[in-house]
């Protein structure tokens, strides 16, 4: 019951964030379209926002109802299908509104400026904190190696929604160090992604710094979490990361990360903050940026907050492929 309530709360919070999406973008942007000042308060602007919110609200309510009423295997289906359905419906509504608002689009001054000085690029001090998880996980491996004999022959590695172990591993190199290898890959990827977001974004981009903070913090949280999981074989066999406390941690943690991201980015997006003059014709559906003539790897999003990849840059695809490979290998490992 508690798990169900926690999942419903999480789902409701995510739906609320999506509901508030039009308020999170730059004042001159609405559903990925650059609109005139004050457009949001016009009848057409209000109608578009209302249409989007109605769809998100209906979809969210349907998901919540499914989570509340379904049971057994259907409940598990609702856990996966709910967020996926909401995402699909939201994207479809967004693209439709993007097309509808195109006729109100106004051009952004395409003028760009460059300081003709070769000042070296200084990485902010906090970016170095990204090395912490990179060293923490090998330290966990050393600790496990030193306490090898204290690890039980068989220990839990997976828990059900009620916190009861339902997956076990044996004391082997693969069973003990597997999560660390996966965690190492993931934190390294996140660190590389954070650095790429710094060096691959224009210096004039106001959210460049907040994004770096956010990515480094996320990397550190994931690193610590995976380090803790890797040490679980040394804990008593009945102990696990699930249970209500753990679920509550996720329920509160995930929206907190979302809200922190929204706050950091919003802070850098005052009404006088200039828009990045990326060409309108390079935005597909107001969401995807494809511009082979732009050297930037990341540009400011137009659909929400944060940065998005320039899909014409091959390094973006390399990073995406590396992440997918990492996730796929993680799944294969845990399935095996």
């Amino acid at each position, binding site marked *: 019951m508690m798990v169900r309530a926690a999942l419903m709360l999480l789902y409701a919070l995510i739906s609320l964030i999506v509901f508030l999406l039009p308020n999170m973008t730059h004042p001159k942007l609405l559903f990925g379209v650059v609109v005139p000042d004050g457009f949001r308060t016009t009848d057409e602007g209000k109608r578009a926002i209302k249409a989007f919110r109605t769809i998100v609200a209906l979809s969210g309510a349907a998901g919540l109802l499914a989570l509340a009423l379904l049971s057994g295997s259907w409940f598990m289906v609702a856990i996966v299908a709910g967020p996926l359905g909401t995402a699909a419906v939201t994207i479809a509504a967004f693209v439709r509104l993007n097309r509808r608002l195109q006729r109100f689009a106004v051009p952004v001054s*395409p*003028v*760009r*400026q*460059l*300081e*003709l*000085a*070769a000042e070296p*690029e200084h990485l902010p001090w906090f970016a170095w904190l990204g090395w912490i998880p990179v060293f923490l996980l090998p330290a966990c491996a050393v600790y496990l190696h030193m306490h090898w004999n204290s690890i039980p022959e068989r220990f839990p590695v997976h828990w059900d929604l009620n916190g009861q172990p339902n997956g076990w591993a044996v004391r082997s190199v693969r069973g003990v160090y597997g999560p660390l290898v996966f965690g190492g890959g993931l934190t390294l990827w996140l660190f590389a992604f954070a650095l790429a977001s710094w060096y*691959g974004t*224009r*210096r*004039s981009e106001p959210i460049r710094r907040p994004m770096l903070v956010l990515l480094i913090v996320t990397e550190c949280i994931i690193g610590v979490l995976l380090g803790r999981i890797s040490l679980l074989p040394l804990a008593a066999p009945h102990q696990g990361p699930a249970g209500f406390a753990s679920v509550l941690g996720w329920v509160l943690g995930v929206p907190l990360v979302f809200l922190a991201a929204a706050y950091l980015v919003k802070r850098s997006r005052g009404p006088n903050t200039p828009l990045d*003059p*990326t*060409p309108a014709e390079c935005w597909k559906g107001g969401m995807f940026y494809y511009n*082979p*003539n*732009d*050297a*930037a790897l990341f540009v400011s999003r137009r659909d929400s907050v944060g940065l998005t990849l320039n899909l014409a840059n091959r390094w973006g695809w390399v990073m995406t492929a590396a992440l997918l490979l990492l996730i796929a290998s993680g799944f294969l490992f845990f399935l095996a």
Partner: protein
Amino acid sequence: MPRLRIDPSAPTPVTRQITDGIRVQLVEGTLRPGTELPPVRRAAMELGVHFNTVAEAYRQLAREGWLDLRHGRLATVIERATPPAASKEDIADYRRRLRELISQMRAGGIPAAKIALELRSILKGLQI
């Protein structure tokens, strides 16, 4: 800090805008010998153009004798040797371009006296 400004929507190709913009600062003396220009990668990113666009502009300025481009080093402004006297064809070409520009200004409603004043002011700024 000298700045370069480009307008990708202008009819003039971006490579030429970059070349012309930097050349103005070189001729005016804002960029002095020894000054290092931003790396091609960063310049291209800040200007929202392809790397090759900036690289070609730098190469053009190097061909004109303004820049030293060595592999692994930043493009550096160098003391330029006195260029050879312009040929008659070159002068005719400059004259044609000036006429086009002045005609454009006149068509835009700028009085001839104001254009003459601007030209004198620009020449003075170029320290010629």
